[in-house]
């Protein structure tokens, strides 16, 4: 069994830039929502019965095919920083990290699978990997779902499909998301048009950490809105096709930045480099914004001195809870910001 500290010290499953599209497609995620038949949903379940549910689900996970060597933990037993680190690694939702109720998470050794217990639904099963991998992730999610079906009976209706706590998830219970890095579309102002077009296609765009989160560092998550009356593979296909078009638009916007405003672009990228290699104190927001420009600079080959792997490492390991778990004296922002600046400077300059 691995610990949260072990996790925090290493790469995650979903950040391996640049991937196939110059770092535009960051990661792909499939989430399935499931509830156990005969047991009320979370809001009508007593604390004691929520605890029983978490234990029963953990047992079912133990028996699921091929599930070995990962991390299985009840969230109330973790420290705030440990729970937050799981959010930063996109293994649990912010909502679940903040909840005080009985809950748990099962994470596979490679962090590709994560199964949240007693979230809004009894089970939220997630498969996440770097790059454009929705189809493959769907196969993996279905395989785990089928394996769990041998242990548990899901609340299912021939009419409405998988029954979920909120009507927006009923049917397939599936949310397919692709996280994109779109700095050029944001810079040229074309992003708004793209977002409007997505609404027409019944898709939505959110920040990195899902519903209600802000898009920071030009990261955007494109997901399906509808889950009833559609087949899983059709949803995945339409998201993938849409993402292909957004990627093409981002590539054109990048080319336009190079062609029409090369000096301005180089200025932005190199100023960001200047800040990150010189600052003595950096908060998360400032880091995220500047790293975004470095990513664009590396992708467009105007910043030969930076490496993708370094940018990924900074993005993941300079988040607040990761710093807190991996370093002494990093419990409050006043301590973390100087530490963050030191690490960023060292890692960038070590290239």
């Amino acid at each position, binding site marked *: 069994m691995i610990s949260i500290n072990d996790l925090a010290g290493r790469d995650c499953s979903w950040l391996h830039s640049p991937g196939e599209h110059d770092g535009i497609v960051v990661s792909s995620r499939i989430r399935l929502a499931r509830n156990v038949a005969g047991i009320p949903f979370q809001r009508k379940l007593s604390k004691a019965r929520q605890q029983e549910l978490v234990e029963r689900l953990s047992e079912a996970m133990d028996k699921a095919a091929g599930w070995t060597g990962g991390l299985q933990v009840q969230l109330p037993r973790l420290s705030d920083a440990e729970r937050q680190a799981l959010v930063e690694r996109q293994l649990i939702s912010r909502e679940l990290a903040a909840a005080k109720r009985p809950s748990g998470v099962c994470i596979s050794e490679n962090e590709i699978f994560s199964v949240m217990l007693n979230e809004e639904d009894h089970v939220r099963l997630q498969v996440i990997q770097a790059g454009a991998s929705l189809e493959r992730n769907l196969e993996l999610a279905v395989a785990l779902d089928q394996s769990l079906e041998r242990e*548990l009976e899901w609340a299912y209706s*021939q*009419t409405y499909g998988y029954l979920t706590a909120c009507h927006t998830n009923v049917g397939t219970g599936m949310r397919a998301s692709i996280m994109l890095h779109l700095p050029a579309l944001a810079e040229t102002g074309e992003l708004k048009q793209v977002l409007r077009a997505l609404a027409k296609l019944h898709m939505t765009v959110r920040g990195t950490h899902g519903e209600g989160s802000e898009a920071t560092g030009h990261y955007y998550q494109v997901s399906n809105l509808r889950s009833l009356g559609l087949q899983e593979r059709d949803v995945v296909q339409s998201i993938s096709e849409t993402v292909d078009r957004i990627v093409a638009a981002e590539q054109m916007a990048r080319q336009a930045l190079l062609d029409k405003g090369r000096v301005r672009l180089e200025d932005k990228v190199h100023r960001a480099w200047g800040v990150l290699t010189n600052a003595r104190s950096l908060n998360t927001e400032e880091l995220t914004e500047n790293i975004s420009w470095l990513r664009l600079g590396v992708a467009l080959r105007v910043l030969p001195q930076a490496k993708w792997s370094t940018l990924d490492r900074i993005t993941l390991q300079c988040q607040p809870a990761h710093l807190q778990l991996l370093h002494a004296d990093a419990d409050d922002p006043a301590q973390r910001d100087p530490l963050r600046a030191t690490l960023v400077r060292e890692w960038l300059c070590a290239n």
Partner: protein
Amino acid sequence: MHTPCQLCGKRPATTHLTELEASGATRELHLCGTCIQSLGVPLQDGPPPISQLLEKGAEDLVLQTTESVVAEVVENDDEPCPHCGMKFSEYSANNLFGCAHDYTAFRDVLDPLLKRYHGATQHLGRGPTRIPDPEPVLAPEAVRTPLGERRRLEAALKEAVTREHYEEAAKVRDELRQFHAEQERVRARATSRTRDARLDAGRAPAGEAAVDEPGDSTTPGADEPPLGAGS
């Protein structure tokens, strides 16, 4: 006869937009004052394109539709789910159901909500490899609760009237009357049985009297099987 607003589908439309497309075809959009206001579209500079209005409407779809459906239910009746005790009006607070049975209990008000959000009311995706035996929660269509039946008939009546299909409406009205009469008979039987049971204390099938009044029975979770049982 009022045309209902195309966004909320409830209030009568007061603003009627007609757009002439390049092909010569026309598109119409009928909206009520409340929805126009909620869209925040300035109309004094001439009407915006219909597509833009619909797009804007889609953004707040979940919130708006839940609110309008809830308002209507509260106005009419708001009986709780017999299994978890949740009322549909509570659903609007955070869009979270109490149990899987809610999909059966609130079926008649839920279907329009699902239709508007998902554009569908029938699942097309995959299902469990081992499809469980049909039981109430698993096949809502197989069970008609008195509450569900009443809502179904009332909705059908309303729709027939809206569409001005008066023959159909009369037929449904008769069915509804028959339904109420039948409910009355069942209730009377249950009451007399309860009275008999009280008189004949000790031998009473106490559960039976509650059969027709699912509304005021359960405390949340009272009928749940213990975890680990039954699956």
